[in-house]
């Protein structure tokens, strides 16, 4: 009887301790490897269109920088500047941090080959 009471108390104590533990951080995501085939890069680059225009050609009257036909190196440098917080931005630092070096290089290459 005494032993059972003790076991119940121990279980309650363990539950309380578990409840007081800070929540474990969520496991890191298992992202699929980036698709750097031409179709994969084209699909990735399509995400830039809402702000920079289809294929990086902004609409008339847009005040956002064009991407189409820009030098590959210049795009890589800007993206890395955003990523490292060295280049002033409203939101591009937040977007750039979503992409790895290989993705940034592939996107820069893609936009450098689009007609202005």
């Amino acid at each position, binding site marked *: 009887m005494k032993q059972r009471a003790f076991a119940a108390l121990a279980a309650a104590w363990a539950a309380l301790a578990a409840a007081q533990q800070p929540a474990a951080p969520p496991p*890191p*995501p*298992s*992202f*699929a*490897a*980036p*698709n750097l085939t031409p*179709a*994969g890069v*084209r*699909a*990735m680059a*399509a*995400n*830039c*269109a*809402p*702000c*920079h*225009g*289809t294929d990086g050609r*902004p*609409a*008339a*009257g*847009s*005040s*956002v920088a064009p991407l189409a036909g820009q030098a590959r190196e210049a795009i890589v440098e800007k993206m890395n500047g955003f990523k490292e917080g060295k280049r002033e931005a*409203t*939101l591009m*630092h*937040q*977007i750039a*941090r*979503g*992409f790895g070096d290989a993705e940034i290089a592939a996107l820069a290459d893609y936009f450098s080959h689009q007609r202005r």
Partner: protein
Amino acid sequence: MRRRDFLKAGAGAAAATLAGCASAPGAAARARVVVVGGGYGGATAARYIRRLDPAIEVVLVEPNEAFVSCPISNMVLGGFKSMADITVPYAGLAAHGVRVVRDTATAVDPQAKQVRLAGGDTLAYDRAIVSPGVDFMWEALPGMARAEAQTTVLHAWKAGPQTQMLRRQLEAMPDGGVFVLSIPEAPYRCPPGPYERACQVAAYFKAAKPRSKVLLLDANGDVISKGALFKKAWSEIYRDIIEYRPNSKAVDVDAAARVVKLEFGDVKGDVLNVLPPMKAGSVAAAFITVNRRWCEVDWITYESKAAPGVHVLGDSLQIAPLMPKSATMANGHGKVCAAAVVALLNGQPPNPSPTLINTCYSMVSDKLAIHVSTVHKYDQKDRTMKTVPGSGGLSAGMNELEGAYAMSWAKNIWEDALA
């Protein structure tokens, strides 16, 4: 009758070519995709399929004559934009070879592979893309069931005639009146939209009716998007105009008395603007799999978990973690889905690692904006889209540069979806 026969003949031809496609990939097959709904998701998907593979026939079914944008429509309420400013014709899609059929799709039949139209026609498809936006759950507000209630208490949550009507109600309201905006529990279309609307209406009141008030009744426990930024705008720009009440869920509306009934107490206003709880658009009802409200899809192809060959986009979706029901997201869904549908129709594997970027601006005055941004990638293990750790974020503060970027965003996304 003649037109119906023509459509049926076209459908038969498409079905015949599909068989050819399956047996001989790369042959001169002409597959047909029917897109239901010409909003941000559907219009984008239609345009991108034609851009990626002009051999695919694309039919877009849309009841409205022109596209009217929900984003920026709050500025019509503020008096800073006109309906013409947020309206884009569908002619651009037609120039891409998209056949735009002005009708309402009433059902998508995955067995027969047909879309049925209110006008009586049927359209056969090889793949259907359903992007119908949201429907309102009027049953949550019994007093709104009456048609006359719905013409006096507006939602203006689908940009169009109601946007103009609500603006007129605000113009007709005497100075000293109260505009009551009721916000449903999340998830709903455009999480920051109601808080932006409060700013826009308050901007109008500040200039034209300075003794008037905006009263926000939020079913949620706090501002669910860009909270600190909106609260700063409310206290710094609209201090004595906007009042925010959290945990204030509407349970009914008395339209004639202009009263919103909450769980505890009634609130009377001069202009009521009630956003009912929302669910997937009715034509997607057969593909709803979550809480009788939303549609689940495979995030690589956007194919419905309820029906093969049917893809669902935009606000009808059961969202992935931290993915808002926004225009930019629907535009992104449209492009990932378009590429996947083109791949599948050509016997190719779809992109196994799709990426989405969300950028969402809110105009807190005629010139100042704030944003939230996220980057989403496909998680192989959990088979969902997840945000990239360390990416995304909010504005440092409201500012004019982002106001200019927000206007640019509208121009660019309208072209990307419709030009």
